[in-house]
């Protein structure tokens, strides 16, 4: 009897042990894992006055500058970025209207995306605030991620010489990423 009891006990243990299994789980669900971070990142900023224009000469109407932005055509961004929302905020206390342009170019200076934002005149007492949201997705995001530099043009509607006030830009981008296998 005692031996039978031992055998029974050992058998239960061994059966229990070797019957251990993993069930009701589906590891194929790893294919469904999507990491979807939304990243807020500052973009460009500047703060200009009349001298910024007259440094180029009397009655100069155009300012232009270029910066690389290799971030955009980085492999990780190209593979995973599905939407980018640019937010531009102008504070204009110069009594002049402006047209501002952002041209996104590739390394051979071919344009892939362009944003044009008119900014109305303000006064020193009451600066005009202009906000613009540029939502880029779908085919446009493919175009955008071909670019690696941004050309910024500011065109004044009239000479800015010896005027009081500033044209200020603050901007940021919200990047929507979907990271999958």
């Amino acid at each position, binding site marked *: 009897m*005692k*031996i039978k*009891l*031992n055998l029974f*006990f*050992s058998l239960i*243990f061994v059966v*229990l*042990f070797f*019957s*251990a*299994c*993993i*069930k*009701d*789980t*589906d*590891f194929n*669900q*790893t294919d*469904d*894992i*999507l*990491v*979807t*971070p*939304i*990243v*807020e*990142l*500052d*973009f*460009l*900023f*500047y703060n*200009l006055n009349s001298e*910024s224009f007259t*440094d*180029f000469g009397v009655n100069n109407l155009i*300012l232009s*500058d*270029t*910066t*690389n*932005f*290799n*971030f955009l055509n980085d492999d990780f961004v190209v593979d995973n970025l599905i939407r980018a929302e640019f*937010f531009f*905020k102008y504070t204009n206390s110069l009594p002049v209207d402006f047209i501002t342009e952002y041209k996104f170019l590739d390394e051979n200076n071919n344009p892939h995306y362009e944003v044009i934002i008119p900014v109305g005149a303000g006064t020193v007492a009451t600066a005009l605030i202009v906000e613009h949201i540029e939502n880029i997705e779908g085919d446009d995001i493919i175009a955008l991620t071909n670019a690696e530099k941004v050309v*910024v043009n*500011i065109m004044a509607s009239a000479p800015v010489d010896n005027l009081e006030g500033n044209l200020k830009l*603050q*901007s*940021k981008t*919200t*990047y929507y*990423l979907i*990271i*999958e*296998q």
Partner: protein
Amino acid sequence: MKNLITCFFMFWVILFNAQNKQVLYGLEEVPQSMLLNPGSIINYDYHFGIPFLSQIHFNGGSSGVSVYDIFKESGGDINERIRNKIFELKNTDFFTATQQLDILNFGWKNKKDIYFSAGVYQEFDFILYFPKDLAILAWEGNANYIGKEFDLGEISTTGELLTVYHLGINKKITKELTLGVRGKIYSSMLSFRSTNNKGTFVTRTSETDNNIYEHIVNGADINVQTTGIASLEDLEGSQVMSEVLGRAFLGGNLGIGLDLGGTYEINEKWAASASFLDVGAIFYTKDVESYQVKGEYTLDGIELLFPPLGDGETTPPYYDDLIDEIEDTFPVDTLNNSYTKFRPVKFNASVKYNFGKEIGGDEACNCLKMGENQTFNQSVGFQYYNIFRPKGPQIAATLFYYRRFSDHISAKATYTLDSYSYSNLGLGLVANMGWVNFYITADNLQWYQNIAKAKSVSLQLGFNIIIDKE
């Protein structure tokens, strides 16, 4: 990224289980219980572990999440489950894996009744604390967390692969008291450690009004110490293996340590025991490479200056300057300074009460007589376990029931409360067939119907030859 997550989960499934061996502790029929208490009761004259088979131990676990929690078949979207877990886990939750393999283990009693035991075992030990803030940042991004300071100091992980050479002595000092001590030499083959990190990252609304936000890394001080890894980088696959194995034979970074323990048999019914394991340190002097990044930085985008340009002049390299500035702010210092690290000390204690059928003296069935101290065939008791980890001790409390069924079979059942769960059932079985001693112990048995639901599982098994001249 997804591959990384998959690998992580698979790693966690394969390396079930933590360092507590609550079933094996105090299981005196098994010589490997001496590795948990060098002062345990020994009722035989010789033992010899079958090389590589005398103790195979796996232990892996996570304190806050099971495989089933993430990969269950029903229950909605896996991404939602992962997200919920990220927010549910705390930064003190952890993932661990421990593995031990007895290479050699033998012992003998001399004429003065001192039991010597010696051997070599290999151990792998890993712990990763859950870096909750960084997980949120990676999973969700910073958009919904403007103003929140993400703690970079939550990064805390250690890992080590080592061999241990040990020699222990055990002696029954008085009728009540048995004491033991084991000296150890550690040979560390590989190790990494990143603890005591500091710093925060925050995206906040700009206070300077330069731009919309300020992205600030504040007081960052991140370090990673490695040994035995830098020299492997230039080696081929097979060379890596032979190099690492070479270090197993005292060719790695060496250290010394002690195990101390004792058992006090208060009377024939009551006994208490305690042990400290791995009181020692490893001196890392060879192949040491530590990396440290310190710095503070505030990013608020790219400021355009619209400078007047002459012919042939180009615009300032704003972007490249920014990248250079960031890299210069956070230089990676590579250090080769030697250092010393204490081993994670483990503490065990137990109290037990013997009862049941008397198995000593002139009873009809004295075939159960195990030794002069085991006079009853059953016992119940309480065990306490504690391991000192980077973020404080991990504690486990165990209730156990032991029963000796016959000369050949004995078993121990445990119920454990630990960092992983409050309902860990363990069972151990020891079979003695002639000179051959076989044992197998496992815990979290209530989940064996579906291991995926277990937050940790521990398993040890092994074969020994045991000789008792009586």
